[in-house]
């Protein structure tokens, strides 16, 4: 292959439909792909030869104080400014309502002056309680995994490597519990940086912040070990360094974002589905790709072995996945199954016909993975700066047609049933923490967040069905202003068919965690570890190259990371 990307003529024949993809159960089975935003960022770092440097570390013997890590891109420098402090163990919580954290950070746009650092020292440790400026691109915090952090410092200070089983079971030294950007608490608006090449893909500055936090956590344990052990102390070995990620605890805050940015979500999904369709439409496999896929099945088996969670439902799904990957490996070993035309489509159909959603979505990631030259250009299509407009010129007849054609999933739900309107979403006065309530149980129905897309469409449809086509939309919303928002949404989503979650988000059986996993997978997170239906822990950047490994030839090979590479896949 000589060209940068291949053009596929018939990829649309292989696209999965929105009705199949945008369902909560499938969304809640998502895995990261090579188009995930962390992967995009790492590729850019390597391609543009970004330079990383710790520029300040002014901490006491326990590691409390100030650290600054700078990254220089071809056009500018960004600095992670971090503050660490001692906190009482009983105040360590992943919730938004936390008041103190082990470490707090800002990503600063440029190189901060001493005045900037003094300003941040008075604000960053307060997180939501502080105020930030357009010079701050992100705000974040992290707490230690006490067991792993302590074991790592103790071991390294004695000249030993940390307990690898313990490290493997947790996967990180510290866990972030929020990473804010895009104008939150006074930080820079996205519009300030949206035209910068390195910021065009979604969430790049937030994920750069997390990448630098990962480096900070590793640097911190090594420095603390040196402080304690002196000459006896050693650094983490290469395997451990690369395996260590950053934890993240994600709660309900992510869910409203997904629902409030339908055009963006469409772009994410259509890019991933196009990538899949391009691969499925290959008649004769590209050289080396089938072999790479076979190896990835072995690696992913180990990844699944190392993916241990307490949640009973997810544990069952992981067990099932283990068996299914094994069965797929056996199926793929039969030449007859693989040597036919369109082998990727064959693999996809075999998995879709026989295995769980969890397995189907994992295979989607695995078959896309060896096709970077074919799909990586799609990463550039995953953002949008579209502001949804109300189209007063649309006729009521057109609107009725659109609702009928594109919103059947909503109009088919019977919202007169109590279980169809069981839940509601709201902001608590407690630090504006997003919460999920049950009608008749929790207060706050009157202040419900406007996220009931299906119900609002259904109510609009009921009214439209008894309204004459003779009036215009502008007259209609003059009479019924309560439908302006949902009409605007419909007008801006019907041509973007992957923009809506095609399920009832209020139903009794709805699990917000499905939305969280969907979004986190697009970020590139792995090892989903549900703690309830409302929040999950994940690992970010596990297996990703450290700054000093970005120039290595395999810098982009870190999907489905494993703690140690077994001999049979070393080649």
């Amino acid at each position, binding site marked *: 292959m000589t060209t940068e990307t291949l053009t596929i003529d018939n990829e649309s024949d292989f696209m999965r439909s929105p009705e199949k993809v945008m369902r909560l159960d499938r969304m809640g089975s998502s895995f990261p792909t090579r188009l995930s935003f962390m992967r995009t960022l790492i590729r850019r770092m390597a391609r543009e030869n970004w330079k990383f440097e710790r520029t300040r570390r002014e901490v006491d013997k326990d590691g409390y104080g100030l650290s600054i890590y700078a990254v220089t891109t071809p056009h500018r420098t960004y600095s992670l400014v971090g503050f660490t402090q001692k906190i009482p163990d009983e105040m360590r919580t992943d919730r938004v309502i936390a008041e103190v954290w082990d470490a707090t950070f800002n990503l600063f746009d440029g190189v901060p002056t001493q005045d900037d650092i003094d300003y941040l020292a008075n604000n960053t440790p307060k997180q939501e309680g502080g105020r930030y400026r357009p010079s701050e691109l992100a705000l974040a915090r992290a707490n230690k995994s006490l067991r792993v952090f302590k074991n790592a410092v103790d071991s390294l200070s004695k000249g030993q490597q940390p307990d690898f089983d313990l490290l493997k079971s947790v996967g990180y030294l510290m866990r972030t519990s929020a990473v804010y950007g895009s104008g939150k608490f006074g930080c820079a608006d996205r519009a300030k940086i949206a035209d910068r090449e390195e910021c065009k893909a979604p969430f790049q500055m937030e994920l750069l912040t997390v990448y630098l936090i990962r480096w900070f956590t590793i640097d911190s344990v090594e420095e603390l070990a040196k402080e304690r052990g002196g000459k006896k102390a050693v650094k983490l070995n290469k395997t451990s360094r690369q395996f260590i990620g950053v934890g993240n605890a994600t709660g309900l805050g992510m869910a409203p974002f997904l629902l409030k940015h339908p055009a963006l979500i469409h772009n994410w999904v259509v890019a991933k589905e196009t990538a899949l369709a391009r691969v499925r439409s290959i008649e004769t496999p590209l050289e080396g790709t089938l072999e790479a896929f076979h190896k990835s099945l072995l690696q992913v088996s180990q990844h699944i072995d190392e993916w241990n969670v307490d949640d009973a439902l997810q544990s069952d799904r992981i067990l099932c996945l283990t068996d299914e990957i094994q069965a797929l490996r056996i199926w793929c070993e039969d030449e007859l199954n693989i040597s036919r035309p369109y082998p990727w489509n064959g693999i996809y159909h075999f998995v879709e016909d026989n295995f769980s959603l969890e397995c189907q979505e994992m295979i989607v990631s695995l078959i896309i993975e060896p096709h970077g030259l074919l799909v990586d250009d799609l990463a550039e299509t995953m953002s949008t700066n579209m502001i949804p407009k109300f189209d007063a010129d649309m006729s009521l007849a057109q609107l009725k047609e659109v609702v009928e054609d594109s919103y059947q999933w909503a109009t088919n739900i019977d919202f007169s049933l109590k279980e169809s309107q069981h839940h509601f979403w709201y902001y608590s006065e407690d630090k504006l923490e997003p919460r999920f309530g049950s009608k008749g149980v929790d*207060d706050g129905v009157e202040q419900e967040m406007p996220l009931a897309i299906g119900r609002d469409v259904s109510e609009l449809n009921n009214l439209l069905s008894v309204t004459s086509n003779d009036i215009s939309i502008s007259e209609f919303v003059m009479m019924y202003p309560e439908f302006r928002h949902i009409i605007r949404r419909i007008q801006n989503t019907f041509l973007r068919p992957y923009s809506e979650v095609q399920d009832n988000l209020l139903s009794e059986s709805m699990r917000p965690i499905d939305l969280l996993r969907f979004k986190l997978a697009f970020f590139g997170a792995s090892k989903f570890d549900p703690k309830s239906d409302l929040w999950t822990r994940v690992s970010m950047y596990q297996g990703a190259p450290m700054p000093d490994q970005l120039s290595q030839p395999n810098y982009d090979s870190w999907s489905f990371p494993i703690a140690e590479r077994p001999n049979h896949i070393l080649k």
Partner: protein
Amino acid sequence: MSKSYLKISLNEILFYFTRAASGVDVPIGLSEDFARSNIWISENGFDPSLVSLQALDNLDSKTSSLSIKFEKANEDPHLFCPENKLLSALKASVSCVDWFEVKGSSSQLKISNVDSPFLVISALGANKLIGLKVLWIDQDKNNYQVNFIDSEEWEIVSSSTNPIELSSNADIFISPIESDHIIHKDNSIKKFNITEKKLEILNNGVEVKENWQEIYDYFSRCLVKSSAESRASGAGAGLVDSD
């Protein structure tokens, strides 16, 4: 965030103003448009809380209304409030934008008794409706003319020294800008370049002053009181997380 004098981001304008309008029972679709208008106000260097507080207060005290009617008297299109109240600019602005989106900028419109004319201006600006002039004389007899010249520039023409953002209670006339419009010698012109000002705002933030606290108070009506139960279970995660 309830501080009375601070700099906020455009994203915060969107977040807080949408919900502040919901706090006075404005339907969410109108609240979204109101917040977008406030972003335009901010991008042009005005304090959005100064502009918008009066309109929210009027709705809250029921001095103004969201009720609106359209009529065509003597062929002149006209929007007005059918109740004996001021017409809320939150409703007047979206109806006015809808009118020009459909009819184009060669048409004209009269809107009667609008409580905050500058919110109508901001809605036209936020929706990039160009080639229009907007005229009004407010209750204090100040006269204003706003011209939307092109996608980059707009201007205020006025003999008044009173801030345009505080102008209130007026009949508004919107029509196409004539190619040879004449500026009266008593009037001063203030020109705005949207791109330049927006860049400045993105680099410095939006300054909001003493009225911000009241906007925040309206926003706070959208928050639900926390109870021991909702604190423990509403967000799922535990209250202490040590591992």
